[in-house]
């Protein structure tokens, strides 16, 4: 039995489908808890719906490249495992890297070789699945303790909370944007940053007057930035 027969088997389909269903329980339960808490805090359904719609619309854009990552992984890992892996923790680059490292450990040249023996393929599935779970294991055991400490700090400095949270957020995205901001050779990325950034400012201004636009501001600005990078690419 070749590894792709296992990977495309109905057992694999069921295991992956079952796992995704279990994973989906979490946002459903949290959504119920969150909406209930929102009502306790005097938030309206409309406010919460806006937040949900805005997030849902925005999330379509970063999901699109993931579909392509799926196509890239299918030839070596079959139809179902990449579906599961990209639906849960991990990323296309992680899956490829972990699968390759595991394959090498098992004495294969890489994950792309044909006819991997069953036991080795299942071993690779194990390695790819487990190696990325550090963050979740941390959350399982330590997030509660850490969050309680954060809450105590927040309680003592209530006036500072929004300022510090904003500062943390700026630090987070300042750091993540830096490799793009400093790469002067990647002009299309620059065009995307500038196009999206400037249109976010403009759409933000217009949204103060036009009701309902604010929800789509992030997604729209990103589309402008992405299209500008296409135009700049053509001009070069």
């Amino acid at each position: 039995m070749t590894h792709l027969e296992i990977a495309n088997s109905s057992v694999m389909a069921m295991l992956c489908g079952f796992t995704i269903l279990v994973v989906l329980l979490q946002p459903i339960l949290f959504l119920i808890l969150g909406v209930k808490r929102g009502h306790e805090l005097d938030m309206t359904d409309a406010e919460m719906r806006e937040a949900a719609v805005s997030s849902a619309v925005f999330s379509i854009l970063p999901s699109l490249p993931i579909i392509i990552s799926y196509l890239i992984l299918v030839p070596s890992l079959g139809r179902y495992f990449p579906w599961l892996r990209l639906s849960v923790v991990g990323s296309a680059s992680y899956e490829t890297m972990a699968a390759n490292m595991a394959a090498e450990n098992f004495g294969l040249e890489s994950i792309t070789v044909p006819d991997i023996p069953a036991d080795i393929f299942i071993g690779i599935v194990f390695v790819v699945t487990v190696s990325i779970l550090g963050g979740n294991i941390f959350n399982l055991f330590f997030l509660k303790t850490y969050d309680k400490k954060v809450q105590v700090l927040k309680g003592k400095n209530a006036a500072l909370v929004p300022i510090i949270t904003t500062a943390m957020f700026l630090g987070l995205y300042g750091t993540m944007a830096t490799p793009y901001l400093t790469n002067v050779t990647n002009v299309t990325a620059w065009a995307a940053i500038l196009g999206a950034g400037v249109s976010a400012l403009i759409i933000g201004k217009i949204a103060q007057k036009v009701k309902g636009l604010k929800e789509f501001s992030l997604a729209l600005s990103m589309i402008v930035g992405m299209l500008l990078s296409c135009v700049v690419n053509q001009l070069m």
Partner: protein
Amino acid sequence: MKNMTYDDKVYLLGRSTVLLALIAFASVPFGLSMAFNSPIDWPVVIEATLPIFLTFAISAVCENLSYAPIIGPGALYMACVTGNVSNMKIPAAVNAMEVAGVEPGSDKANVISIIAVAASTFVTTAVLFLGMLFLAPLFEPVYNNEFLRPAFDNVVPALFGAILFPYIAKYPKQAILPIVLPIILILIVGRTFFSTYQSYIMMLVIILSGVYSYMLHKKGMI
């Protein structure tokens, strides 16, 4: 259950659903091993898992410590199970806070984050499910279209621009250090070092950015 505080409910729900997810994840290799009657070769598997696990675990912990105060624990439990935290879940949460007009770090902000991350999870899962069923091959020519290709290569920079510019415009004084410091750092240490140790650098920048904003506040400048 009735007498529990909201926070305790979040911890309980978060921990139990994370545990459930971990068990479900593990069921895939174990299920295959049983179904195809093929035992797992433990020494080799552990030898392969450990180094990758440790590499990712250390940076994941740094990231979670940084994310938790921003989006709150409920959203973080969820975000980490489904992944794409920095390029989808956090921006979704922060954008939703902005749309709802709630103060970052507040109780309301945590509720909005939970709703945002849940909505985002449903969308990605649905898109990928459709991708697996039929969408992926249909989308491929669009993705590989010569004119449109840069658009899909630049989703992340576009996201950073759309998220950062309004924040810089709104909080110009607070933004100086967190924007300039990492740029100076990457020029000193080089791109490879920066991207290899980005989680650690991020944590450092976040802490310094917090201290810097605290000082601005103390001096009455913000």
